[in-house]
């Protein structure tokens, strides 16, 4: 078990280091965030539509898109020079490879989220600080959910010709439960509703994470065996 985690960590570290060196996907995600903020700000009439109504949805669109950018790049790295074969020939177990990839993607998406959230709080003037704890929890749970499934999907999509197009097609339906829950919970948190009101959505989110992370670990092997 410890060996598994150690190997996963090593794979994740390699990926994060590579991404940090080129930074293209990361910068794209941040640029998109800024764009979304600016457009929605100019698109609405502040007297007619309150920021609180729009902010949760926009926040999660941004996070999801950042995840897509990261996921596209996830196995793309290995596709060049057939580096994936080298990884598979190594003694690393398939599960370790999967967990390592998920971890690297979580670091990527998490970094974008860490920057985007304060920007949103600032530009939309939404009260994030009072609910920061629950917000971080919700963001972590939802991100884990769609990154876990997204990593699996991208391991398949990368082997098709139109990989960047295939990933959203495969992933979209699977985003509905975690992102819907996240948006609903975020909306209630921003509105200052008590945390107890989000119980049902939270249970849905946790249930989704448990089932799908387990399923993805189970099925990852089938997507890369030769």
């Amino acid at each position: 078990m410890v060996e598994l985690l150690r190997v996963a960590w090593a794979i994740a570290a390699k990926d994060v280091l590579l991404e940090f060196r080129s930074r293209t996907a990361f910068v794209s995600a941040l640029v998109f965030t800024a764009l979304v903020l600016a457009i929605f700000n100019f698109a609405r009439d502040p007297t007619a539509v309150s920021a609180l109504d729009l902010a949760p949805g926009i926040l999660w669109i941004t996070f999801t898109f950042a995840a897509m950018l990261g996921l596209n790049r996830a196995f793309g790295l290995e596709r060049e020079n057939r580096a994936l074969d080298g990884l598979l020939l190594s003694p690393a177990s398939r599960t370790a490879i999967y967990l390592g990839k998920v971890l690297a993607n979580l670091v990527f998406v998490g970094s974008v989220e860490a920057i985007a959230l304060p920007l949103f709080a600032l530009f939309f003037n939404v009260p994030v600080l009072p609910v920061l704890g629950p917000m971080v929890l919700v963001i972590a749970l939802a991100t884990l959910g769609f990154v876990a499934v997204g990593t699996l999907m991208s391991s398949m999509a990368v082997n098709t010709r139109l990989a960047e197009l295939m990933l959203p097609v495969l992933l979209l339906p699977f985003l509905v439960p975690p992102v819907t829950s996240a948006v609903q919970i975020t909306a209630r948190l921003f509105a200052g509703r008590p945390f107890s009101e989000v119980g049902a959505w939270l249970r849905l989110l946790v249930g989704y994470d448990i089932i799908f992370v387990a399923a993805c670990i189970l099925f990852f092997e089938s997507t890369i065996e030769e």
Partner: protein
Amino acid sequence: MTPIESAERALRRSAVWILVSLLLLAGVYVRALVFTPAEMVQGLAQKIFYIHAPSAWVAFLAFGIVGVTSIVYLLLKDPRADLFAASSAEVGMVFTTEVLITGPIWGKTIWGTWWTWDARLTLTLFLWFVMLAYLVLRSAVHEPGQRARYSAVLGILGALLVPFIHVSVYLFRTLHPLPVVLKPGRPTLPGSMLVTLVCAFLTFTLFFGALLWHRYALARLTDARAHADAERADA
């Protein structure tokens, strides 16, 4: 009997059953449109129910078959399971599309708009997206073994997704009730209407079965031909 001969015989037999079910479908049409009384509150549009509900049942049945045969494939690695799953997905897609077309047409008369995020229709919409993803993925992967594995994984994950989408929509709806003018729901049907509905369910199921059988036979034939060609090329 060689695989090719077996597939060709299945094609002939299932073609007959397709034609039989089309005739029965025409019978259902006549019965529903002419010989079943109209419902007073919704008017004639309520009759859409007789082709909408059975299609929905078939759509979910087809999807369930995809899920189960995908599990069978991953466990046994039998390519026939993969071909069966793919056939069910394709045929199921047709019925799911029908549900998504007749649903909004009926909905317009009940809800006043073409679409609301109604629980069942929304679930069907995402079912449609998953089936589309499944079929698109298959068309994008050429190596048969890889295609079968990928499809199986997507099929099983898709089946797992269904209850979660259901709960998501249900939670959303209980907190945001629909502007429902009339509730279609499950009315207690008077005798004549119930008979029509049961006939429709049976006919649609038969139609699905015949189409599935035929599509599967076609897949087997294509596969067997490809193998025979490959063997001849090697020789």
